[in-house]
């Protein structure tokens, strides 16, 4: 059980850590100053959430690993994030669509975690839920602006959705870890979260005049440490300093 809880907490944490890193890549490159700051704010929100979760994962594991140890000294096969969040930023529509698909999953997940039997996860979710509410508001609104904007913005938003859709199946994977914790009342069931995701996506895409992609092949494996080629590059950059100068502090 503590093994499953460790893995589950890492999954929650790694989604946020990797997404945070992706969003931080926009710092200084945003399309306008206001959006640059909005994305950097968001990157920091996720970094804070990830730290809380990694600290907790370290406690659950009981081997004395800190949040920094878990962030900087694990290889990509030990990362448990979904493939969606490691996908490259692409154009701004890609970044927004990736945020939106993640938010439509993450907000109901945080709401559901408030009823978890694990007090620590409840506390972490309680803090994250307000941030997640704003994140979804920001990304939804941009989906509508792009989709219902010019021909070009519509096309770019649709392309981004079509490209990323294959990564949405993994958000709701029911494996042994998930089932064990679901049974223990710690992890919320995927069904209602998928239903909330569907309803958000359908509603926003309708307003955005965008077409919901058909469910086809769904890429999975991230939850078990099998990632796309992109994660290695992210970790190389993120972990360089700790790897080159082990134990360095600043």
């Amino acid at each position, binding site marked *: 059980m503590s093994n499953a809880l460790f893995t589950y907490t890492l999954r929650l944490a790694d989604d946020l850590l990797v997404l945070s890193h992706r969003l931080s890549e926009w710092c200084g490159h945003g399309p306008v100053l206001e959006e640059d*700051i909005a994305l950097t*704010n968001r990157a920091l929100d996720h970094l804070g959430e990830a730290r809380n979760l990694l600290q907790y994962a370290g406690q659950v594991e009981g081997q004395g690993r800190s949040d920094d140890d878990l962030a900087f000294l694990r290889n990509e096969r030990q990362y448990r994030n979904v493939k969606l969040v490691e996908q490259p930023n692409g154009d701004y529509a890609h970044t927004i669509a990736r945020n939106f698909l993640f938010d439509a999953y993450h907000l109901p997940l945080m709401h559901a975690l408030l009823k978890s039997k694990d007090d620590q996860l409840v506390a972490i979710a309680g803090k994250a839920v307000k941030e997640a509410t704003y994140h979804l508001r*920001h990304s939804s609104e941009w989906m509508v602006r792009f989709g219902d904007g010019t021909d070009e913005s519509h096309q770019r938003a649709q392309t981004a959705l079509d490209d990323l859709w294959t990564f949405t199946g993994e958000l709701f994977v029911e494996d042994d870890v998930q089932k064990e914790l679901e049974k223990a009342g710690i992890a919320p069931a995927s069904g209602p979260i998928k239903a909330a995701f569907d309803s958000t996506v359908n509603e926003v895409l309708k307003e955005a005049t965008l077409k919901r992609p058909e469910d086809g092949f769904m890429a999975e494996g991230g939850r078990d440490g099998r990632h796309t080629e992109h994660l290695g590059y992210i970790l190389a950059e993120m972990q360089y300093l700790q790897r080159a100068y082990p134990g360095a502090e600043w």
Partner: protein
Amino acid sequence: MSDNPNNWPLWEVFIQSKRGLEHKHVGSLHAADAEMAIENARDVYTRRQEGNSIWVVEAEHIHASRPEDAESLFDPADDKVYRHPTFYTMPEGAKYI
């Protein structure tokens, strides 16, 4: 920049720091509409807990007095000290006046 019709309009941002206090002008930003202006204001101007409420006004809707009118508008108040409530003796024990 403002000559470019593709640029978003300029908005002036007012933040209320605490309930009951006034909204103070804190700066400006660009946004396509009011909703975006409020979100941008949240991200740009309330990151360090400055805010409790946000007002945004499109800059073009603000009418300002002209600098060249300043003398006629403001100088006449210079020699009218009797308009300041400084000639009263403070009642003993009154703290918040």
